[in-house]
C-alpha cells in the first residue's frame, strides 16, 4: 500500500535495513562463537570481553594503520568487480555462480598475454594484458549465457560446471604451455611490463582505482542507458519485455558476457597488481565471496561497493585479530557465511523484527526463486 511518495531517506532505509540487520546479527553470532570456542580450550576461563577485543583488532587491522587501509583496498578491489558482475547478472534474473572460473581464467589469460608482449613497455603491455583477461572472462560468461538463452540450460548448473573446467584448464595451461621454461614448479614467468604500477603503500596498485571507477560506470549502464533498462526489464519480467519488443535471448547472453568480463577483470587486476605471475595451485575465494557481496549490496553498484569494503576490511584485519586476540582468522569466513544465511532468510527476519516498508527478500533472491525451473527463454 505504498500510497505515499517515498523520500530518498525512506528508500535508503528500506534498502539498507535488512543488510545492516544481517551484519549486526552475524556479529552477535560471531561473538557467541568466539566465547564458546575460547571456553572449550583446556583451563580457559570464559572471557566476555574477548569478542570486543577480537572485533576491535579486526577493525584496527583494517583501518587503524596506513598499511591496513591499503590492504583493505587491495582486498576490496576484486570483490567490487566480481560483485558487480554477479549483481549485473542478478538484475537480468540470472544467478552467476561462475565468477570463480571467470576470475581464474581471466587472471591466467592476463598473465599469458603479459608474458607474450613482454618487452613492449607498460603502455602496450598493461592494456593488452587487461584486455586479454576481460575477453577471456567474457567468453567464460558468454558460454552459460548462450546456453541459457538458446537451450534453457540453467546458468546455476552450467556456471558451476564451468568453474571446474576453468580450474582444470588453468592448471593444465600453467603446468603445460604457459610454464616458465626449465622451472621445476608449475608457474608462469613473472610479467614485468604488464605489472600494474603501485599508487599507495606497499601494494596499493592502480587496479584499485579501476575497480572503484567501475562502480559509477555500471551504475550508469544499469540506470541511465537503455541497455540497462532492458537488462532490468528482462530480469524483472522476461515475458513482458519480449512483448515490449526487447530481445531476452540476446540480453541474457550479453549480460552474462558482461558479468564474466567484470569477474575476469577482477582476476586480471589481482594478478597484474600483486602476484605478477600465476601458479597451478593459485587459489582464491573471491568468486564465491562476491556472491555474498552482491546479495548484501542488493545488486546495486553502490551497495556492492559498500559490501565489498566491509568484506575487504574483514579480510585485511583478520591477521591482526588472530595475533592480538588469538581468534582464528577463519572467523571471517564464519561471519560471511552467517551474513549470507541471514540474508537468504530475510523473510524470517522481516517477521521477527517486524520491519515494515522494508524491501522484501533481496530482489535478487526473489529472482532466483523465479528463475529456478524456468523453461527456456523464448
Amino acid at each position, binding site marked *: *500500500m*505504498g*500510497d*505515499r*511518495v*517515498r523520500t530518498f531517506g525512506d528508500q535508503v532505509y528500506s534498502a539498507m535495513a535488512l543488510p545492516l540487520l544481517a551484519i549486526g546479527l552475524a556479529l552477535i553470532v560471531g561473538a557467541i562463537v568466539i566465547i564458546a570456542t575460547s571456553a572449550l580450550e583446556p583451563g580457559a576461563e570464559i572471557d566476555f570481553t574477548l569478542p570486543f577485543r577480537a572485533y576491535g583488532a579486526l577493525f584496527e587491522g583494517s583501518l587503524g594503520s596506513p598499511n591496513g587501509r591499503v590492504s583493505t583496498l587491495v582486498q576490496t578491489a576484486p570483490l567490487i568487480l566480481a560483485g558487480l558482475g554477479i549483481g549485473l547478472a542478478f538484475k537480468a534474473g540470472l544467478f552467476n555462480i561462475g565468477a570463480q572460473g571467470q576470475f581464474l581464467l581471466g587472471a591466467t589469460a592476463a598473465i599469458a598475454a603479459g608474458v607474450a608482449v613482454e618487452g613492449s613497455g607498460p603502455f602496450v603491455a598493461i592494456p593488452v594484458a587487461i584486455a586479454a583477461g576481460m575477453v577471456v572472462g567474457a567468453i567464460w560468461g558468454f558460454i552459460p549465457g548462450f546456453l541459457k538463452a538458446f537451450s534453457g540450460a540453467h546458468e546455476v548448473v552450467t556456471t558451476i560446471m564451468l568453474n571446474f573446467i576453468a580450474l582444470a584448464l588453468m592448471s593444465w595451461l600453467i603446468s603445460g604451455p604457459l610454464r616458465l621454461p626449465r622451472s621445476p614448479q608449475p608457474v608462469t614467468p613473472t610479467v614485468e611490463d604488464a605489472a600494474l604500477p603501485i599508487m599507495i603503500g606497499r601494494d596499493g596498485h592502480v587496479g584499485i582505482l579501476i575497480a572503484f571507477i567501475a562502480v559509477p560506470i555500471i551504475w550508469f549502464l544499469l540506470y*541511465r*542507458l*537503455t*541497455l540497462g*533498462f532492458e537488462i*532490468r*526489464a528482462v530480469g*524483472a*519480467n522476461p*515475458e*513482458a*519485455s*519480449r*512483448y*515490449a*519488443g*526487447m530481445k531476452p535471448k540476446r540480453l541474457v547472453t550479453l549480460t552474462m558476457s558482461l558479468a564474466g568480463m567484470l569477474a575476469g577483470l577482477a582476476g586480471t587486476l589481482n594478478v597484474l597488481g600483486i602476484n605478477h605471475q600465476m601458479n597451478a595451485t593459485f587459489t582464491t575465494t573471491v568468486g564465491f565471496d562476491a556472491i555474498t557481496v552482491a546479495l548484501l549490496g542488493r545488486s546495486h553498484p553502490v551497495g556492492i561497493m559498500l559490501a565489498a569494503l566491509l568484506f575487504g576490511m574483514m579480510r585485511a584485519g583478520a591477521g591482526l585479530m588472530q595475533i592480538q586476540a588469538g581468534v582464528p582468522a577463519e572467523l571471517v569466513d564464519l561471519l560471511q557465511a552467517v551474513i549470507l544465511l541471514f540474508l537468504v532468510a530475510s523473510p524470517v527476519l522481516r517477521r521477527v523484527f517486524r520491519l*515494515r*516498508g522494508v524491501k522484501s527478500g533481496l*530482489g535478487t533472491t526473489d529472482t532466483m526463486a523465479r528463475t529456478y525451473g524456468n523453461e527456456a527463454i*523464448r
Partner: protein
Amino acid sequence: MRGITKRYPGVVANDNITLDVRPGEIHALLGENGAGKSTLMNVLYGLAVPDEGEILLDGSPIRISGPTDAIDRGISMVHQHFMLIPVLTVAENIILGDETVRGAGFLDLNQARTKIQELAARFGFDIDPDAKVETLSVGQQQRVEILKALYRDTRILVLDEPTAVLTPQETEEIFLLLRRLAESGRSIIFISHKLYEVLEIADRITVIRRGKVVGERLPDKTSEKDLAELMVGREVELTANRGESSPGAVSLEVKGLHVKDDRGHEVVKNVSLEVRAGEILGIAGVAGNGQDELVQAIVGLRKATGGSVTLKGKDITGLSPRKLHELEVAYVPADRHRFGLILSFSVQDNLVLNRYMNAPFSRGGVRNDSACEAEAKDCISEYDIRTPSANVNAGTLSGGNQQKLVVAREFDRDLQLLVLDQPTRGLDVGSIEFIHGQAIAKRNSGTAILLVSAELDEVLELSDRIAVMFRGELVAERDGRTADKNEIGLLMATGGRAAAQGDEPFVDIDDPA
C-alpha cells in the same frame, strides 16, 4: 458481521461494515475492485484479523483464527481461481485436507466416493468421482469446488466471482445449483460485479464502496443502473454507446493461419479473418479455444506454422513485436501481470516500456528521465490513472489502474491495428466504461480493432462484427448489431455442431490447459 473495520497502512479497507446473512439466503456483495469485498471475506475466512468489530454466528460472537477454523465452523470459500490439483481425481481433490483414514494411514476413498455421489445427487447433478480434474470443463471444476465445501458440511458458502469464467449456459446451471443450496438452508455470499447476474440470483444485495456499505437493495426494487451508480458513486453509462461505425478499406487480413501451442498441438486451425479500418471485430469463445495463440501469432509473439497475416497489403507474418510496433500495431494482452507490465518498475517506466529507446525518451542510448516523466504526466491525466505519483511501482496500483496504464501506453499514438485480448478482465464498472470508451474512440479515428474476449457481454457490446472461435476454428460470424446472446453462447459452448445436445459436457480432446 458487525462493525468490521480493517486498516492497512495508509488505507481503511473496511470501515465499520455490517453484513448479515440469513440461513437459506443468497446474499450478493457488490463493489468495485478495491472496494473491500475481498478484505471482508478474508476477515470472515480467518485470513485477516479485524481491527474492530465482531463476527457473530447464530447470535454468539466468535473468533476465527484461520481457514481451518472457518471450515470447522461451516464457512467455506470458492475462489475465483480454482484451488484444485489437475492431476488428481475429483474424489481425491475433494477429500484433500480432510482425508478419511483407515487403519495405519490408508486413504478410505470408497467412503468418500459414496458421500460425493450422494451429495451430487441431492443437488441435482452428476459427477464422476474418479475423473481427473484436468479432464473436466471449467463449469464442472467449479462444481467440484462447491462439492468440496458441501463435503465439509458447509453452512455459509462464499463464492468469489464464480461466473467470471463460465459461458452463459454454465452460469445458468451454477445458478440452479446455488438456488438448490439455498433451499436446503445454506447461506450463500455471492461476490460479483456483474449487475444483471446479481439481480437474477440474489435475495438481497449489499453494495460496498471504498470500504463502506453504501446501500442495501432488494433485487425487485432496484435496477442495474441504480446498482452501478451506487457502486461507482456517480452516474455511469452501462452500455458503451458505440454508435455507427464507418468501416474503410481492409486493414488486417489473416489467411489460413495455423498455430501450435507450447506443447506442439495445433490449436489454431486454418483461421481466416479480416478487419477493416474503423471497425471492431470481436472474437467470442470460451477461454482455451486457441484465441491466445491466434493473437500471439498476429502480434509477433508466436510463430505461425502456416498461413499469412497482412496489414494494409503488406505481409507482416512473423515480424517481431518491435517491427510491428513501428508499423503502428498495438496490443493489450490478456494477462497484464505477465505480459503487460513489469510490476516492480515504476508507472513511468512502464508507460515507456515499448518506446524507451526512441527520442525523446532516450538519445544515443542514454535515457532521458525528464522526457519520460513528462510523458507519464500526460498519460496519467489523459487516461485517468489513479496513482500517487509516476514513480511508484506499477504493482501498487489497483487492477483497473494497471490496465489503464497498459491502455495508455498502447493507445497513446496513431494506430493502424489494435489487438485487444480480454481488455477488461477482472475490472470494475468504472474502468470498463473508460476502456470501452477509449476503444470506441480509437475505432472512430480509423483504427482496425481485433477484440478477443471470453466475456460475451463485452464482445456483444463493442463489436461491429462477431466471430465465434471453437476448438481452434472460427465457426460462425454474426453482425454485431443483430447478434443474439443465447445463440452466440451456444456456439461458444458447442461450436454449433452439438447444438441439439447442449448439455453435453465440454471436454476438449486436445487436453485443455
